[in-house]
């Protein structure tokens, strides 16, 4: 709550980050898996009689690959920075300060990646075969190195492991429990993405059907490692998840939370079903490469996008209600602060750094609390709609509910006095079009002197 609040109508700040990040993830995985694909295909082309034809196709692959990953990838990558610092300044700050060195390496990797890719692409005619193969391999290694680094930070947010604010042991935080299963899963998905992209480019081959079919089959093979090994890695990954998350997942399949299948479950199954569709689609294309159209290949790639959305949303929601598990809540409240009753009981707006001047118990009072404590996750009427969730509220019920909301395990504790709670609750109820008569808490507020 150190900053004014970034208010995104309809989507909400979190979903904006998510949308940019999911697109970025798809591209980033392709950027690394495609590197491996280029390298293996280069080596493969040397062993085939029609190596030149393969390389001509590979050239097309590299062109689209370069455009797609460097332009869209870079733009969304920067977009993530812009959006997360607005959505969770505290979280961003913590990640930057804890992993300064990792970010530096990441940045160097990124530059190296771009340099090698340009050398590879623009040296197509000039470089020797050995040089090209070396550059493709080097590109993959460097790009994978950037995954190696960023994966530490991503998994840290969900499973900080032995890291704590007191010990701030970087190595424990970096190689946290979720690190290796996540690294392996992502690597396999990258190979899959490289292959799926290969199918798209291969469907553009005109003329020689036999050659087209071979290249399509070669590309379809890249789905296999992910399809076979990921289920086992998932079991490993599962064992590293916080117990609260696993419990939420178990109970969520019957839709007891809010009358719906818990989001965690929905996204998990989205990923699983997409995975099945990709395997099935790859099988169809491998059986009948002749029938593979560009539209079909793009469709397959889009399924991967949906699957990604499911998997990444699952990982993000598994952290609920924290941005860094057990350390920092999504609305920038520190866990250790939340355990300090004196601090938590202070009038909330007096702690906000950007302090609005409001009349106590006025509608503005409630609205400001909504802005500072709720909107980092909820919108009023769209994504994770607060309006829908509070339709049945009365001011008294809301006030009581806010007091104990953290006990559900999916919400952070409320910060502020009974007066703050009443102000927020009144504001929420008034948003439903109900006239809230005299606020009832005034006068009986503990510590209410503002």
């Amino acid at each position: 709550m150190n900053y004014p609040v970034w208010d995104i109508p309809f989507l909400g700040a979190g979903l904006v980050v998510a949308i940019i990040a999911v697109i970025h993830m798809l591209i980033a995985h392709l950027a690394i898996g495609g590197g491996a694909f280029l390298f293996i295909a280069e080596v493969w082309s040397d062993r085939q009689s029609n190596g030149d034809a393969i390389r001509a196709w590979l050239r097309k692959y590299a062109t689209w690959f370069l455009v797609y990953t460097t332009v869209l990838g870079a733009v969304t990558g920067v977009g993530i920075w812009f959006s997360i610092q607005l959505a969770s300044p505290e979280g961003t700050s913590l990640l930057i300060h804890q992993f300064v060195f990792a970010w530096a390496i990441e940045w160097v990797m990124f530059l190296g990646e771009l340099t090698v890719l340009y050398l590879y692409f623009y040296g197509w005619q000039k470089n020797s075969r050995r040089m090209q193969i070396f550059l493709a391999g080097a590109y993959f290694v460097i790009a994978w190195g950037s995954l190696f680094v960023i994966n530490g930070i991503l998994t840290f947010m969900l499973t900080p492991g032995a890291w704590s604010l007191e010990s701030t042991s970087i190595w424990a935080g970096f190689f946290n429990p979720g690190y290796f299963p996540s690294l392996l899963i992502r690597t396999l998905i990258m190979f899959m993405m490289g292959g799926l992209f290969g199918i798209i480019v291969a469907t553009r081959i005109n003329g020689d059907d036999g050659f087209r079919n071979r290249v399509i089959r070669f590309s379809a093979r890249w789905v296999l490692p992910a399809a076979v090994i990921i289920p086992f890695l998932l079991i490993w990954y599962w064992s590293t998840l916080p117990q609260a998350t696993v419990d939420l997942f178990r109970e969520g399949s019957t839709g007891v939370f809010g009358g719906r299948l818990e989001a965690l479950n929905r996204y998990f199954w989205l990923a699983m079903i997409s995975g099945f569709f990709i395997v099935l689609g790859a099988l169809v294309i491998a059986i009948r490469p002749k029938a593979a159209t560009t539209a079909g290949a793009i469709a397959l790639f889009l399924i991967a996008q949906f699957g990604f959305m499911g998997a990444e949303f699952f990982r993000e929601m598994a952290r609920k209600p924290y941005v860094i598990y057990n350390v920092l809540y999504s609305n920038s409240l520190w866990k250790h602060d939340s355990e300090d009753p004196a601090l938590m009981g202070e009038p909330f707006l007096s702690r906000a750094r950007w302090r609005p001047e409001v009349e106590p118990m006025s509608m503005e009072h409630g609205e400001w609390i909504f802005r500072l404590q709720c909107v980092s996750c909820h919108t009023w009427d769209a994504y994770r709609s607060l309006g829908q969730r509070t339709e049945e509220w009365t001011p008294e019920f809301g006030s009581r509910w806010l007091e104990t909301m953290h006990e559900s395990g999916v919400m952070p504790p409320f910060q502020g006095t009974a007066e703050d709670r009443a102000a927020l609750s009144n504001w929420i109820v008034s948003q439903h079009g109900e006239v809230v008569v005299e606020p009832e808490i005034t006068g009986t507020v503990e510590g209410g002197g503002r």
Partner: protein
Amino acid sequence: MKEAEGTERSRRGFLGFLGAVGLGWLAAAIYPVFRYLSPQAPPDPFGEDGRALVEKITSAEVSQPGMGGNGKYGNRGLLIFRNQSGTLKAFDSKCTHAGCNVAFEGERIYCHCHGGTYDLEGRNIAGPPPRPLTELGVVEEDGLLHVYRLTGGGESEAGS
């Protein structure tokens, strides 16, 4: 030619393998449908205090020795009667043979479906039933009958 055959064979092997993997993923993808159709566990007829209220038969209907009839507890059928020594006896009325509800016939418990016969202690004495009936403990309180699950032989005495 030979090489082509080899490629063909490896292609078939590859497709078969991919197909097998696909089946595995299919299992994961239709798991939600499987769960959707799987019946949920029936509610436990016994409440938090371990007892269930007897319905569809009142204590007045079993007030004298030799009186008895069918009723229900929770979602299950029940046979309750007072034996000649004046003790209330209750059994889950589901016949252990094929699941019909048994009837109380004064001297014996009889199942009309296939002629299964039990004595008044619920022991299967004639006909097809393979096992005795499940006995329940009974308590009478303020004119209401309650049954509870019997765990061992000793409690059965205490209950009646």
